[in-house]
């Protein structure tokens, strides 16, 4: 099972290494980790995708909570969250294959952001499945390079995960 955790942390140097270190030290698997500053410049948000069972997720959450720089953690329900990942895919393209690739790109509502004689670079955002599907289709042309950001996620509707702690999230 995959779980998405949304984690608010103090925007201090060293926090990322503490979080990442905790994962390796305790033998947890992270699928992806994306970080960026929030609307409040003193706080960053990490979106962490963890692979494991309920016990693992509970342990991850509890151990993360022990870090002084971690302000809040919420396990996101995929049905109630918007999840996105950005990927850049550089794929082989020649005069014969170019129009096929452009068509595929359009179907996926992706963008071509760079063109050279032998390659096209495609930008796509979406959930993991969508990106996987595009990569799968592009494989036949020869993928040169893939760069992915890891998942970011936000809750749907007017719910927010903010600095002030409320009982329900504990």
């Amino acid at each position: 099972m995959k779980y998405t955790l949304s984690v608010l942390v103090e925007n201090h140097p060293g926090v990322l290494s503490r979080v990442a270190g905790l994962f390796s030290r305790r033998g947890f698997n992270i699928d992806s980790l994306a970080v960026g500053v929030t609307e409040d410049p003193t706080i960053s948000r990490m979106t962490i995708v963890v692979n494991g069972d309920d016990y693992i997720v509970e342990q991850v959450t509890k151990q993360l909570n022990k870090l002084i720089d971690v302000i809040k953690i919420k396990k996101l329900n995929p049905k109630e969250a918007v999840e996105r990942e950005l990927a850049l895919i550089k794929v082989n393209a020649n005069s014969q294959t170019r129009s096929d690739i452009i068509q595929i790109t359009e179907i996926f509502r992706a963008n071509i952001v760079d063109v050279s004689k032998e390659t096209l670079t495609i930008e796509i955002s979406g959930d993991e499945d969508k990106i996987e599907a595009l990569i799968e289709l592009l494989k036949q042309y020869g993928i040169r390079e893939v760069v992915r950001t890891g998942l970011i996620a936000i809750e749907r509707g007017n719910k927010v995960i903010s600095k002030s702690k409320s009982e329900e999230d504990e």
Partner: protein
Amino acid sequence: MAKMTVARAMVEVLKSEGVEIIFGIPGAAIYPFYDALYDSNIKHVLVRTEQAAVHEASGYARTTGKVGVCVATSGPGATNLITGIATAYMDSVPIVAITGQVNSSLIGKDVFQEVDITGATAPFTKHNYLVKDPKKIVRILKEAFYIASTGRRGPVLIDVPIDVQMQEIEFEIPKEIDIPGYKPKEKGHPLQIKRAVEAIESSKRPVVCSGGGVIASGASQELQILIEKQKIPVISTLMGIGSIPTDHPYYLGMIGSHGQKEANLALRQADLLIVIGARLADRALGDTKITEDMKIIHIDIDPAEIGKNVDTNIPIVGDAKQVLSEVNKRISERKDFWAYEIKAQKKVLPDDDKLHPYDVLREISRAYNGDYIITTDVGQHQIWAAHNLYIKEPGTFITSGGLGTMGYGVPAAIGAKFGRPEKEVISITGDGSFQMLLQELATIKREQVPIKIVLFNNTRLGMVYELQKKRCTGRFIATCLDGNPDFMILSKAYGIESMRLESKEKLKEAIEIMKSHKGPFLLEVVTSPDEPTIP
């Protein structure tokens, strides 16, 4: 607001936190701080290696309940603290460790005596700081004391570059500390407490497993009220020894692979296990399997401990003292004490002409009647001490339970004596452990710390030797301590009185001599290498 250097401000904050004593060794990267210390009335104890500084701060913290403070210079000074910091982390001891760091502009360049000590200690500090902005020093130090001494306690490290120490700041102590990500929860959830009370009342064979958390939270009295009302037998982890007097009629002893038979038996027969302030690590459980039909209540200040090693039916996050007093308010009285039978089976120790370690420890118990603070090292002698000493009060049995650090005992005893000078402090050690930090004899001499050291000399790394005897069919490698010094001459070199005990006839007399001696004293007990951990 007064203008002063960061170094001075650091000393001012220490004063305002009530720090009376610091253990450490200076160096070029921390000299401004030391220079500022010169003008204060905080006592500084010069140790002979930094590892001892942390252990001494630890002994001090564990006997006083205050935060222990130690200081080291950058690089090797800082890395020498590491074992001590990890030891304090595993046993939840509140420590603030201050290290000097190279000039901020040189950090990351591998210059002379530079080491990334915050990176190195991140896994086993509760939190740590590298101070880059001089203006933040006061807040950071205040936070460090707050974090170290609240919630589940533990070590905090602060690394201060030398140029930062020398900068001038406006000094003002903030009134409040607010750390958004750190809000320890002390009160147990009322519903869970209600469930716990019901579970205890409806159980047939409940057992309390008491851990170091009971001592740390000062919950011994509440624990006794609970068990006496409900007639519950108590077993303890190594860290929990002393949480209830060891002569209490309901106390069955320590559990685990090195535990007492009665305690393990009670654990196996229980239908309800009430774990308080313990993590139930592998060594504590030994080969006892927690079965599905045993219910578990787990009370701990650290939510991450609950459900980590054993599955819990009723988790209660909170301070043991608070939770237990809530439980006690609601709990009824019970009539029968189910574990008397187990207690009656208590093993009688062999009594022959030979001088056994348990004879010595029992004689010490008798002579002092439990009016002492005991520290131990790690090995067979630690287990002998855990099984045979009379421990009367919580916080008077001090040992490295979590990390099992050899070399802990003597420095911890020094710290304990500084913390509670009115108490007799006795360090129980082995010849292997003692030699890991024996340079602290110099600290004992210099500061005239009147501790007693009881050294069980079996010329072996006994615990490992015993393991080799059992598991490696006697293929002994690297466990014979040939080349041990003559400990009598050694202590003489440090100007410390000593005596060697070799026979049972001299036992009473030797303990009397040790007890009546005013200054520091070393009693070497010559022990057979084949003396088992559990007779």
